[in-house]
């Protein structure tokens, strides 16, 4: 389980670096839920209760930031104040806020030094245009993450030992897979054999047809990549779990140096003889990303490629 503070901070920290140039206005909740200074505490606390939030910016009549009111402030009112008091009497006046043009990096710096749960976001004329919380950042990232790209020291560790799913956190145990297919990388002609075998297998298992289609197309692309690019042995594994189907495709070939570029539609390094066979349009990885609910690709030069895709059995996937 993720304990609410340290682990969330750690996760936000790791993921934020991937998106460090994204500006806060793409992530913040907007329009924000706000109260004016003259609002009575008893109404402000109701807004927080109904909206299920633990704090909100307080604004002046001209919409500029006046302060922030949090649950802690409300507790203080209960201890020693009057619910008919106005918000400006109890709010925190010295507010740390972000500008809508700030990036995630700025959020991270603040998050390290201040440890507040939420930050108002103001535009260049000082008006409050949104609110951003750690959860907003996490949620935004998970929406954004069709794939998680690990491009630092950790990938070497991962590539050299038992593969641990970065999506589910489980170890990938090749021995207990429900389906296994060894890819013959020497023959472009044989591309697709594994994917069609997997398709048959999934249909026999009673998996819904549209899901089988998504899985077999993604697997086909993964299989084609082994043959076209890796020049090494590769294998397709599949596990049917209660709520999802996992496909894991790995090879021991030359790997991908620049995954960002490889994920670009239309980018391909496929040789001419492969293009003659109708491949190399640069749609492989983008297709896999599109058809899977979650995709992780880990690779580096000469370390092979490890591709993990999850397909949800219900409609919970994005």
């Amino acid at each position, binding site marked *: 389980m993720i304990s609410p503070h340290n682990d969330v901070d750690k996760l936000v920290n790791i993921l934020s670096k991937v998106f460090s140039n994204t500006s806060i206005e793409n992530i913040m909740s907007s329009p924000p839920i706000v109260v004016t200074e003259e609002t009575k505490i008893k109404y402000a606390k109701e807004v927080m209760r109904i909206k299920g939030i633990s704090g909100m910016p307080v604004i002046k009549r001209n919409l500029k930031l006046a302060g922030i009111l949090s649950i802690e402030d409300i507790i203080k009112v209960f201890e020693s104040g009057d619910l008919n008091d106005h918000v400006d009497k109890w709010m925190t006046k010295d507010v740390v806020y972000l500008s809508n043009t700030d990036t995630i990096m700025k959020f991270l710096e603040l998050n390290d030094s201040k440890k507040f749960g939420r930050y108002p976001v103001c535009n260049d004329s000082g008006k409050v245009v949104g609110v951003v919380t750690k959860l907003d950042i996490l949620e935004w990232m998970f929406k954004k993450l069709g794939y998680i790209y690990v491009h630092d020291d950790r990938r070497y560790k991962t590539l050299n030992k038992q593969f641990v799913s970065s999506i589910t956190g489980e170890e990938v145990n090749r021995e207990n897979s429900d389906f296994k297919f060894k890819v013959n990388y020497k023959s472009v002609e044989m591309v697709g054999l594994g994917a069609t075998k997997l*398709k048959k297998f999934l249909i026999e298992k009673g998996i819904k047809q549209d899901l089988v289609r998504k899985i077999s197309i993604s697997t086909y692309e993964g299989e084609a990549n082994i043959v076209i690019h890796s020049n090494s042995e590769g294998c397709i594994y599949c596990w049917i779990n209660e709520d999802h189907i996992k496909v894991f495709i790995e090879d021991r070939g030359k790997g991908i140096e620049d995954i960002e570029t490889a994920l670009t539609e239309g980018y391909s390094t496929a040789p001419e003889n492969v293009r003659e066979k109708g491949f190399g349009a640069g749609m492989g990885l983008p297709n896999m990303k599109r058809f899977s609910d979650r995709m992780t690709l880990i690779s580096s030069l000469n370390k092979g490629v490890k591709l993990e895709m999850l397909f949800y059995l219900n409609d919970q996937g994005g």
Partner: protein
Amino acid sequence: MNLDKLIELTKSKVITKSDNINEFDIEYAGASDLMSDFLAFSKENMFLITGLTSPQTITTAAVIGAKGIIFVRGKEIKENIIKIAKDLDITILKSNLSMYVACAVLYNNGLKDSMGTDEALK
């Protein structure tokens, strides 16, 4: 459109037929020699129109759930391809028409675009 009509329009020869294909109502088709395009933009139960006669054409058709393939430009179809098509239950037709003409005649007779770009013409 049923299979007989499709064969008649494209002046095709049947190379192999899958089970129950005669009763099937063909609604969509798409044409490409690039398998990746089929993988990216396809509709289930469609017919592929292609000049690429390789085993991957059949496996591509199988994974996207296409019903059949029309090989155009009178390409030679090798025995191993027919075998894979039988295994995977894919119908194969062969036509001497060019891809352009095969597409035109099918489109004019009501087959819809698997990519849906025909919507823009309406």
